[in-house]
């Protein structure tokens, strides 16, 4: 067991996977010699050689397209898109190809690839380094979508993703790379070394894809969230004193509907929180499922807290990011209904 940042945990997952399985290869922009702009692949090329961890041209469709070809051959590519905002050139390869190969060929060919990408804001990245495109993946049948909220989950889920027989989108909230950010940007950064979920086993372990985790037991209201917003929601619960049950979805597709339904049935109130934009966001799907399955247990309208329906602004980042104050107000709103 070691104290790890989320960067180290992600790196450890790839390290463990590459050591166990020679078919695992890692590549992407700046990923090889330098070890990635966030250093997630640092040391992997030196350890496993240039043909298993290497730099790719700046071509996301090329990175994902070649990964698909490698997977058809029998390798297990785990590729990095430098920022989730850069994934759009690869979207054709992901939606029309990776997601469909098993289906359209009736299993003659499969596509076990992992596409890692830093996601979300909070680092003054502006509109091209802050996006949260998870709903663009959850809308695609054939993909799996994971958003971890801490180093322990990131490692276990990434190993699961690499071992998964189908394509997995692995979105790493970049504001969580170095610490459990609670939305109070004006305060000093709390490092993962001071958080229990920074305790990460050195070796191999997995966390099942499709299982949520309850981060805070509560009875008054259920908060359904994932990624950076898990920590913001926990802080909002403490600051408002509202006894919220906070569910960290971890995996958006497949989704752990059972945990959601159990909790909302118990609390009768529900707040859905994500950093991505509101309209047609993943929260819309969650809200719909909650009303389908828990309608007669609901005591108030479901409240959503999300990024605004605008591009991610630069200077006004903290007016865009749904911080603990906004989540806190939503909790109160859900309690009043």
């Amino acid at each position: 067991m070691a104290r790890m940042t989320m960067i180290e945990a992600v790196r450890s997952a790839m390290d463990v996977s590459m050591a166990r399985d020679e078919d695992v290869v890692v590549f992407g922009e700046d990923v090889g010699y330098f070890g990635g702009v966030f250093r997630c692949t640092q040391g992997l090329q030196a350890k496993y050689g240039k043909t298993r961890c290497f730099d790719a041209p700046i071509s996301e469709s090329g990175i994902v397209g070649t990964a698909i070809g490698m997977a058809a051959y029998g390798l297990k590519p785990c590729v990095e898109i430098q920022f989730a905002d850069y994934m759009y050139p690869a979207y054709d390869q992901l939606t029309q190809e990776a997601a469909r190969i098993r289906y359209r060929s009736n299993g003659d060919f499969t596509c076990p690839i992992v596409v890692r990408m830093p996601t979300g804001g909070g680092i003054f990245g502006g509109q091209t380094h802050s996006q949260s495109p998870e709903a663009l993946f959850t809308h695609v049948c054939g993909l799996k979508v994971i958003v971890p909220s801490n180093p322990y989950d990131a490692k276990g889920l990434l190993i699961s993703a690499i071992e998964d027989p189908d394509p997995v989108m692995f979105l790493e909230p970049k504001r969580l790379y170095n610490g459990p950010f609670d939305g109070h940007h004006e305060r000093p950064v709390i490092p993962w070394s001071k958080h229990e979920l920074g305790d990460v086993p050195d070796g191999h372990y997995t966390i099942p894809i499709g299982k949520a985790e309850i981060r805070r037991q509560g009875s008054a209201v259920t908060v359904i969230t994932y990624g950076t917003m898990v920590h913001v929601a926990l802080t909002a619960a403490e600051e408002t004193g509202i006894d919220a049950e906070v569910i960290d979805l971890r995996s958006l597709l497949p989704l752990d509907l059972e945990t959601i339904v159990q909790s909302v049935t118990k609390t009768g109130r529900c707040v859905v929180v994500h950093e991505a934009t509101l309209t047609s966001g993943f929260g819309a799907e969650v809200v719909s499922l909650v009303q389908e399955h828990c309608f007669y247990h609901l005591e108030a309208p479901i409240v959503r807290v999300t990024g605004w329906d605008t591009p991610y602004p630069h200077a006004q980042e903290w007016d865009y990011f749904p911080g603990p104050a906004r989540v806190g107000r939503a909790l109160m709103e859900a309690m009043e209904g």
Partner: protein
Amino acid sequence: MDEFSRLSLHIPEPAVRPGDQPDFSNVKIPKAGSVPRPEVDVEPEAIRDLAYSIIRVLNREGEAVGPWAGLLSDDELLTGLRHMMLLRAFDARMLMAQRQGKTSFYMQHLGEEAVSCAFRKALRKGDMNFPTYRQAGLLIADDYPMVEMMNQIFSNESDPCHGRQLPVMYTSKEHGFFTISGNLATQYVQAVGWAMASAIKNDTRIAAGWIGDGSTAESDFHSALVFASTYKAPVILNIVNNQWAISTFQGIARGGSGTFAARGLGFGIPALRVDGNDYLAVYAVARWAAERARRNLGPTLIEYVTYRVGAHSTSDDPSAYRPKTESEAWPLGDPVLRLKKHLILRGVWSEERHAQAEAEIMDEVIQAQKEAERHGTLHAGGRPSVRDIFEGVYAEMPPHIRRQRQKAGY
């Protein structure tokens, strides 16, 4: 007064349109046998002119001439002819089946049979193609069962894809045929990835990517060439230039570059143009490229100059966008007739044997069709289960798809 006049936009136009006389005077055809055959380890710089010429073996008299000739035996050529005739007969029957409502859609190869049939011969078992929808010759020439192809076309109860994929979008890992997407150019870069994987694993197998003249305009074409060039992937990158992208003439995708093959030059990839209607030339060039790949010398770009005699698919009528007699004016002739002429000249074939073979092959196709139709056609007889809609999206069915399947009553 400014020294510059106002700007105007250039829109390329084909030389002729419906009602005009066909005109291929812009297609420069070098004499058969006139293009040299370089060593496979030649520096790409030294053979730049091959991207602007056309490698041809069969001349007008039906003789095989020049440095690219002499690679195939009588028996191999007779088999090649048989494959092309089989593909042509298969197409004819399936086109008719589509007209009869037995399938929703079909795409034929008429005039382009040599490209995929001869290419397949240059590959080995275990190599992998990433084809488009007009390379069924890769399957035919590898003896993939016609009945299986028809089962897929008819979307019947024995459809290997269980009714999920459009007709003619075959898949066969065993026969080195990657599942056809139906989207364009995506598979080109995947072929490069497959080849990179083979090199990463120090394997001996190579890959082949396929693309049409029109879809070279896609950015994935560029991505594929970048990756192939950067990593010297053991891949053959094929461009089938059949002159037409549905109704759009090849000048729209080609733009100001002289040829499609020339696109490879900027990447340092050896680029060759070949007479796509010449079985011997296609095989010779494919073999050259395959040898380069197997010797770890990297990728080769090949442009097959051919002509799409038929419609793009059963959904378009070529007379609406090009002269009706254009295919007859195509200066590179018909691949089946050219190989037939050559074999007669070699003394191993005759008009009588050809006519007899045609009849036998058609009978073979009809027998296969009867067998396939026993398993159903699109709107009659056995069909895939509704359950098949929900299977195979993932290796393991997730709960939400299971709930939807139950809701559908299965």
